């Protein structure tokens, strides 16, 4: 009997482990901000996500998201070099940004509010990210204030130059969801 139980436990554990994996090639993580009124788009090329989610029990779900800050690009070498610098992402000392969910609340069919902690450059903020989930693809966007995380510090802190509001948009495709 004991053996049977442990065998079952191992089996369910194995199932859970292979449950969901992010498909990076089908996923996007981008952001938009305004520079003297001009919309500027950028993206992160490298990011990972661990998702533990059952549509029947969304409240029990969990998501952990990690972004490689060094993979940021605005598509312009001069801007990218600046963004890696200490006043912006300071990628030498802060390689990763993380988001860890604390609760997932269903708000409609296929719609959820994911609350959690976003940590960038050592600063943590509670954010609520509304997402839409369909066919294994989670889509959503969240507005953050760059100065909450000292992104664009010092001479760049002037928000008439670079707006404080940044919209982060994502499309995360999961296999096995």
């Amino acid at each position, binding site marked *: 009997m004991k053996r049977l139980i442990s065998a079952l436990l191992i089996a369910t554990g194995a199932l859970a482990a292979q449950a969901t994996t992010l498909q990076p090639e089908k996923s996007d993580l981008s952001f938009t901000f305004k*520079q*003297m*009124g*001009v*919309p*500027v*788009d950028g993206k992160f090329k490298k990011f990972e996500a661990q998702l533990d989610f059952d549509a029947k029990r969304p409240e029990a779900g969990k998501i952990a998201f990690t972004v490689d800050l060094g993979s940021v690009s605005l*598509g*312009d070498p*001069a*801007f990218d*070099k*600046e963004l890696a610098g200490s006043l912006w992402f300071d990628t030498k000392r802060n390689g990763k940004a993380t988001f860890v969910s604390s609760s997932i609340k269903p708000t409609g069919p296929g719609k959820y509010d994911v609350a959690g902690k976003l940590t960038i450059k050592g600063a943590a903020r509670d954010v609520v990210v509304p997402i839409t989930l369909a066919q294994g693809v989670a889509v959503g966007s969240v507005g953050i204030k760059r100065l909450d995380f000292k992104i664009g510090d010092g*001479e*760049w802190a*002037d928000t008439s*130059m670079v707006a404080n509001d940044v919209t982060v948009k994502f499309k995360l495709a999961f296999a096995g969801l």
Partner: protein
Amino acid sequence: MMSPATRYTPVAIALHWLLALAIAGAFSVGLYMTDLPFSPTRLKLYNWHKWAGVTILALSALRLLWRLTHRTPADLPMPAWQLRAAHLIHGLLYLLFFAVPLSGWAYSSAAGFPIVWFGVLPLPDFVGKDKELAETLKLAHHLAAYGLGLLVTAHVAAALKHQFIDRDGLLARMGVGRA
């Protein structure tokens, strides 16, 4: 009072001097900003330069319309080749009043930075984001701007020569002094 045929209309004179100032300003800022390291100052100057360029483009359109619908003063007596050169330079100046800002606008669009006039009015992109095209347009914008600089220098030198060597009162046509 002077007879109206000896000088340009007050609107033409006002546009001439306003645009002279604006073009000299935009040109100087353009020369200065490209050598700056990446900084808020550099981005600020780039935006101001673009706003100035679009303003110059709009005022030049107004000016051309005015020029085409109003009489210009009679030519001063001078050798025929000088008249031809003066008129040719005026024509080329008008061409570049449009070519310089338009190439700059297209360059900005191709580089992926649409122009938002005075940070308020988003302008359309006539070309999409395209790195190679941006490089070509950058070169075109620089060449056109340097061409405009040369023409302005010739135009100013000729005007000063008339005013101070020939002493024919040429500048009165543009509202400076009496004919």
